[in-house]
């Protein structure tokens, strides 16, 4: 029953998406607004139906309805409720269902907030969202159907992938990632809508999609940081980033989106880079689909790979259509997108943004070619090669360092024109900060050139961005005699976008310092310790108290209880463990981490004697790791501040209910008719 409700809801949603996609061009061509309105209603309906399907699946999971294919695949009576619910996105079919749900939610919101705008931009944007949704519904009723019938009904299932039921962060990381990934569909849809409707010369699409891009970027940032954290807490190697294909897949759209967030400011202020920005947003979306292709088709082996199947062909088709259609649209419109602006000087913020975009593009390209090179090499040489951490570190560290430097230069430089005097005044304090930081880093023991450079540039960027905020606060305190807190609040409130950006920069500095410090000053200790004995770990001693086992419904767990000793004083206890799942040959480690602002003590149980008389422990001392998580939070806070600007006033004559036709003349805008004709009958072609 549950199965049929879910499955049929998906089919009806698919039909609704098709209807909406057809209704829009028909409505625009015949100038019948009710058709367009009907497609908006279809978007809401599609969201409602997908919600029904998601609830059916969650209900099936919670009630252990093993007649549903997906439940039989990932469910188990022994799995705790929390992990049962989050197994919704633990395997291929469920993750596609969840993805479709987020996508239809965002589609409905885009339509809801913009349904009263005149012109063809919103109809075409909606059509793009519907087209992307349609793709996911095709997957859901076809190769990724989660509601297949299992017969005979099994009594129990294997439970979710052990790696995915081992940490609470699995409840956080995937939804954030999907919100980020799917969120990038919205600016893409606006860009395609703008090009298809012929309204690309007005920069409306940029203004309308700005907060969507920021939001998606914030979610993607949070997702990447949460993924790093999960990797750190679960995989047991004490690291957080391995340049795994899936990590790269989430990182590449982040890079292009970050480039876009900066370069779009040049477009808004100076009317430049319009073509470039369209390319960036199209690339961002294409990279999200590429990332999904790489992880869902089994092309590259990866920790997150979801297994193989015909689904790869579907994603390939989606990538092909996306690339062909959107780059054709961008190129076809390119003549209308000439820059209208010009630069007043070389040493300006605009130039820094150009360099920033160059570096972000080179960064993306490096990660992309590194990720795809094993495929290229096999095609060309017939030899399997690996491209891993050493390659990516070597190639991207210079770019990272340069970007850190630019992050300080950009905010310090004014728009339009800077005199030498301004330059000196603005850049001198950050430079002093950089020199100081380099000196401190060397004094503390950093010897690698990149580490020293990274600390110096991080300090440079920090001073530059903090100064931007503090000088504004001081000015307000002086001129309006406000208190420091009031002044800060009002300053940020008055220009949220700008100061949100600076806050995000400070967060990036925090992440950069955390990464540099933890990888430069990381020390490892490994020893086999008898019960009651200790091993040294930096300035601490780790004493093994006991090794104990515990049976849990879904797994058995062997843990070591250790004391962290500072001299003779016990300052904490940790329980690193190994988990044995029936479905996994290898034990899944659960390291124990003692986290303090200045660094982590990471203890992993490597091996143990069955009688509990000794255990092999690996202890890693990693300074400043928590700064990475904290920095991620600060970046997201910055994104929130920048997003919180009020949207442009909507028209006051808005209808108050979904899909109701307003009492005013239909299609009053000549622009809509003309552009719709141009796009639909190809009369605009030359």
């Amino acid at each position, binding site marked *: 029953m549950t199965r049929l409700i879910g499955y049929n809801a998906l089919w009806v949603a698919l039909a609704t998406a098709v209807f909406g996609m057809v209704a829009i061009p028909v409505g625009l061509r015949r100038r019948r607004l009710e058709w367009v309105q009907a497609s908006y209603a279809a978007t809401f309906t599609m969201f409602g139906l997908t919600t029904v399907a998601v609830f059916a699946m969650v209900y099936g999971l919670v009630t252990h309805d093993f007649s549903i294919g997906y439940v039989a695949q990932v469910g188990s009576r022994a799995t705790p409720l929390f992990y049962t619910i989050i197994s919704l996105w633990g395997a291929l079919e469920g993750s596609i269902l969840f993805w479709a749900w987020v996508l239809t939610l965002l589609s409905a919101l885009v339509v809801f907030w913009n349904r009263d705008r005149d012109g063809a931009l919103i109809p075409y944007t909606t059509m793009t969202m519907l087209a992307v949704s349609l793709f996911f519904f095709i997957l859901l009723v076809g190769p990724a159907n989660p509601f297949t019938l299992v017969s005979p009904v099994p009594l129990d299932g294997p439970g979710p992938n052990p790696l995915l039921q081992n940490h609470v962060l699995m409840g956080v990381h995937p939804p954030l990632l999907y919100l980020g990934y799917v969120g990038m569909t919205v600016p893409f849809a606006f860009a395609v809508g703008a090009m298809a409707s012929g309204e690309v010369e007005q920069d409306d699409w940029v203004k309308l999609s700005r907060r969507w891009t920021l939001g998606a970027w914030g979610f993607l940032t949070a997702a990447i940081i949460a993924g790093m954290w999960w990797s750190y807490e679960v995989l047991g190697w004490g690291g957080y980033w391995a340049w795994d294909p899936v990590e790269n897949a989430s990182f590449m759209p982040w890079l292009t989106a970050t480039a876009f967030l900066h370069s779009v400011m040049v477009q808004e202020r100076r009317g430049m880079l319009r073509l470039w920005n369209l390319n960036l947003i199209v690339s961002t979306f294409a990279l999200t689909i590429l990332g999904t292709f790489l992880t869902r088709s089994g092309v590259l082996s990866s920790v997150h790979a979801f297994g193989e199947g015909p689904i790869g062909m579907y994603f390939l088709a989606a990538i092909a259509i996306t690339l062909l259609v959107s780059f054709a649209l961008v190129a076809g419109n390119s003549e209308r997108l000439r820059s209208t602006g010009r630069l007043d000087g070389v040493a300006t913020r605009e130039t820094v943004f150009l360099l920033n975009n160059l570096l972000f593009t*080179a960064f993306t390209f490096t990660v992309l070619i590194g990720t795809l*090179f094993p495929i*290229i090499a096999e095609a060309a040489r017939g030899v399997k090669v690996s491209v891993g*951490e*050493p*390659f990516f570190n070597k*190639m991207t560290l210079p770019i990272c360092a*340069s970007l850190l430097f630019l992050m300080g230069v950009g905010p310090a430089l004014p728009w339009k024109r800077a005199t030498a005097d301004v*330059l000196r005044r603005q850049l001198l304090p950050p430079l002093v900060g950089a020199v100081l930081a380099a000196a401190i880093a060397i004094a503390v023991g950093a010897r690698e050139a990149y580490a020293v450079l990274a600390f110096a540039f991080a300090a440079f960027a920090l001073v530059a961005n903090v100064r931007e905020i503090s000088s504004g606060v001081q000015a307000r305190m002086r001129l309006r005699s406000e208190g420091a807190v009031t002044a800060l609040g009002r300053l940020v409130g008055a220009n949220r976008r700008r100061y949100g950006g600076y806050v995000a920069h400070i967060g990036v500095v925090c992440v950069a310092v955390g990464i540099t410090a933890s990888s430069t000053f990381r020390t490892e200790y490994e020893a086999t310790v008898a019960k009651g004995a200790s091993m040294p770990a930096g300035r601490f001693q780790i004493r093994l108290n006991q090794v104990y086992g515990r049976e849990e419904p879904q797994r058995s767990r062997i843990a070591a209880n250790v004391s962290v000793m500072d001299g003779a004083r016990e300052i904490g206890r940790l329980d690193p463990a190994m988990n044995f799942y029936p479905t996994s040959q290898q034990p899944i480690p659960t390291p124990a981490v003692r986290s303090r602002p200045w660094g982590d003590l990471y203890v992993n149980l490597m091996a143990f004697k069955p009688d509990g008389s000794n255990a092999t422990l690996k202890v890693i001392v990693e300074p400043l790791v928590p700064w990475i998580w904290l920095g991620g939070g600060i970046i997201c806070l910055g994104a929130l501040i920048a997003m919180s600007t009020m949207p442009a006033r909507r028209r006051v004559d808005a209808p108050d209910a979904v899909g109701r036709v307003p009492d005013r003349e239909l299609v009053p805008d000549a622009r809509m008719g003309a552009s719709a004709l141009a796009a639909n009958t190809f009369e605009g072609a030359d």
Partner: protein
Amino acid sequence: MMHRWKVPLRSARLRAALCLAMLLLPLLPVTAQQPTSAQMSESELERRTREVAAQLRCPVCQGNSIQDSPSELAQEMKGVVRDQLAAGRTPNEVKQYFIDKYGEWVLLEPTASGFNLLVYVLPVLMLLGGAFVIVRAVRKWTTAPPAADGTT
């Protein structure tokens, strides 16, 4: 270079050059010094083991190096690295041993020769090409006559 910044910068060109130099600073090759003495200390051996192990892919993992992987096979492979280095083999000889056993696949960083050079050269070419485009665009945009509606 730091000294330069203290004097007023007169020409925009000089400023641009300095900015560029600052940007290129991280691109300077950083060469790690290799100890030449035959007798290696315990910590030196450990350091070199880590260095080599970080470049070898763990066969039973997904893209982790044998330095990072806690799996038993990776630990033993790391032991092989340590033993061979202690016996006086060079890092390259140790890597060659693993290539002979597991194929080129075992290197986490492709050898910079032949077709593999592409993966190193293409990003650099892209960066240089992009820099060229930007320099030309900036020159054009700064010298062109002001557009009527270009500025806000």
